[in-house]
């Protein structure tokens, strides 16, 4: 009992509890398929047929060939930048809503998720309508005699904008929920003790809300790293990411075994990322003493 109480108080345990429902979902819908994928990844494909011929050629291909590494790198850069942009954009929004939203704050937060009511394809196409060559933005520019902005048409930047738009509600929600438990009076204490607002943010707000923020980052990073729909619609021919190449193996080329191996690699990269974030929570004394939740 005592040890359970101790366990309950540890930030790691909280992190685990928060992610448990997701984890169960993942077990049924991800881990079981993943095990089959893990098995397939050590087989090989011949004329759209999986052959149980155990080998590690698929991994050699992915980790040895420059093309695959390039796509992996692109996705990594994309995931990091999208997470960063989401973070920078979502923090003030969540902060304002939590601090000044009053009785409307729940509605305000749900509003950030409004685009979710329509489904991913519709949302991505909507973005295409805005950013694409015949999209709202560039059409408007051309109407007024300006050059269309090339970088917004079928590029990684366009994909990034789309992905930010797609996943930012997660970030807002995670930070908002964390700030709900945050005692804003601590900031006043900091001010009185000589901290300017930005300093008080770095010393107090940021560390005390790091767990929520980290969850937000994970929730944005992972789907971005695995994204394939958004880059296909918005990224154009040169905007393909790791997820597109992966998807390709299961579609056009029918190289299921290689695709499986790519999936396994993707899974481990995400796992490593979560571990890194987890470590920071471990090291950070996040100030949770078991009282606030």
């Amino acid at each position: 009992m005592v040890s359970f109480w101790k366990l309950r108080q540890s930030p790691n345990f909280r992190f685990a509890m928060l992610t448990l429902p997701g984890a169960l979902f993942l077990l049924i819908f991800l881990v079981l398929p993943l095990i089959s994928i893990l098995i397939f990844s050590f087989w090989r494909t011949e004329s759209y047929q999986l052959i149980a011929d155990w080998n590690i050629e698929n991994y050699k291909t992915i980790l040895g060939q420059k093309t695959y590494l390039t796509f992996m790198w692109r996705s990594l850069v994309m995931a990091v930048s999208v997470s960063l942009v989401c973070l920078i954009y979502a923090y003030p929004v969540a902060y304002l809503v939590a601090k000044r939203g009053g009785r409307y704050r729940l509605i305000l937060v749900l509003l950030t998720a409004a685009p979710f009511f329509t489904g991913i394809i519709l949302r991505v196409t909507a973005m295409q309508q805005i950013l694409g060559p015949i999209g709202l933005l560039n059409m408007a520019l051309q109407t007024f005699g300006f050059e269309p902005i090339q970088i917004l048409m079928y590029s990684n930047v366009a994909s990034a904008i789309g992905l930010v738009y797609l996943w930012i509600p997660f970030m807002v929600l995670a930070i908002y929920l964390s700030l709900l438990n945050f005692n804003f009076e601590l900031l006043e204490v900091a001010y009185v003790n000589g901290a300017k607002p930005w300093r008080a943010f770095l010393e107090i707000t940021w560390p005390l809300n790091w767990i929520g923020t980290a969850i937000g980052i994970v929730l944005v990073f992972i789907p971005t790293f695995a994204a394939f729909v958004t880059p296909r619609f918005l990224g154009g021919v040169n905007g393909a990411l790791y997820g597109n190449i992966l998807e390709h193996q299961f579609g056009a080329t029918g190289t299921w075994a290689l695709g499986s191996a790519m999936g396994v690699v993707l899974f481990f990269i995400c796992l490593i990322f979560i571990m890194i974030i987890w470590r920071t929570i471990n090291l950070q004394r996040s100030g949770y003493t078991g009282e606030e939740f």
Partner: protein
Amino acid sequence: MSAALPHHLTSLQLRDIAMTEPALKLEQVEKSFDKVRAVDKVSLEVNTGEFFSLLGPSGSGKTTLLRIIAGLETPGNGTVHIGGRDVTRLPPYARGIGMVFQDFLLFPHKIVADNIIFPLKMQRLPEDKQKEQLNWILSLVRMEGYEDRYPHQLSGGQKQRVALARGLVSRPDILLLDEPLANLDLELRKEMEVEMRRFQAELDIPFIYVTHNQEEALTLSSRMAVMHNGKFEQVGAKLDLYNNPKTRFVAAFLGSPNYIQGQIKRMEGTIAILDWRGLDLRIPAPANATSGDKIDYFLKHERILIQSLRESEPAKGENRFEGTLRDIIFKGQHSAYFVVLENGEELVVNAATEMPSLKIRHAVEVGWLPEAGDAFLKEED
């Protein structure tokens, strides 16, 4: 040389001015929230080395006034000067003050040492100086050996010591304290009261101490203000407030006195004779009082003499009444004696515990001089 002289003089003069200025000066400070006048035209001067208490019932505006001094609220009107400097428009971090809060508000993610040096870190003091100050203040508040603990590993009293240390470590121009002992149990509160006086005396920093506990205010402070509905009812030395309350509110509040209501029958110079439900009571006549006026008279428990019947002769002009001792409540060195008079009114008398001649349900005599109590014209409400 001659060119440098005026400059030199100026800086000396400046220092002189700074030294003669009060540590804190409030002028006509006002603050309203929607329709509530939380602070209403408050003026105050507090000098270096003073332990000043702000006493008032819940909702009287004490916290709001303290927050205005700290810069956490902007006054709607009026000015705030700290050490001769107008800080009315300055943010809290530019005011050089310390503050201690009721619920301690330590930073939960920082160890004791980091909590305490926080103000020094914000001032960018060199690290060795920080360490020096930390050790000094830790020994002052007697918290050596707790540097590496997190706040949740401390008891309430220890948290309050750390909060005090954080407020004092940078030797601020003033220290603001908002009911710092309210969350501690009685024993700890008594202990911390003694400590609080020691810190204040040793550091010579003016303390502005908010409380709704009059005992605390009377024990701790040199001067105090009683606040009511956002206004200062009376400001002055604590004994002066206790002995010579200027307003009905202060008289009714300090010392939780007996409350006597009556109507003036006739005037005898500076003395008014009150009809107190059938008894004639001599009281000091309030200004502008005439026959027929309704009067509130407040009489502190310890100002009443209690004895067995005819144990002594009444002094000239003294009120003397017979009554029955209903109950005695033992309070240590003193006891509270509950006396029911012939007119059915009950008086509480504080007197020494050792009075073998007084027995419950027996007849007793109570007496006091008119000036022992404070009389006010009844306010229309």
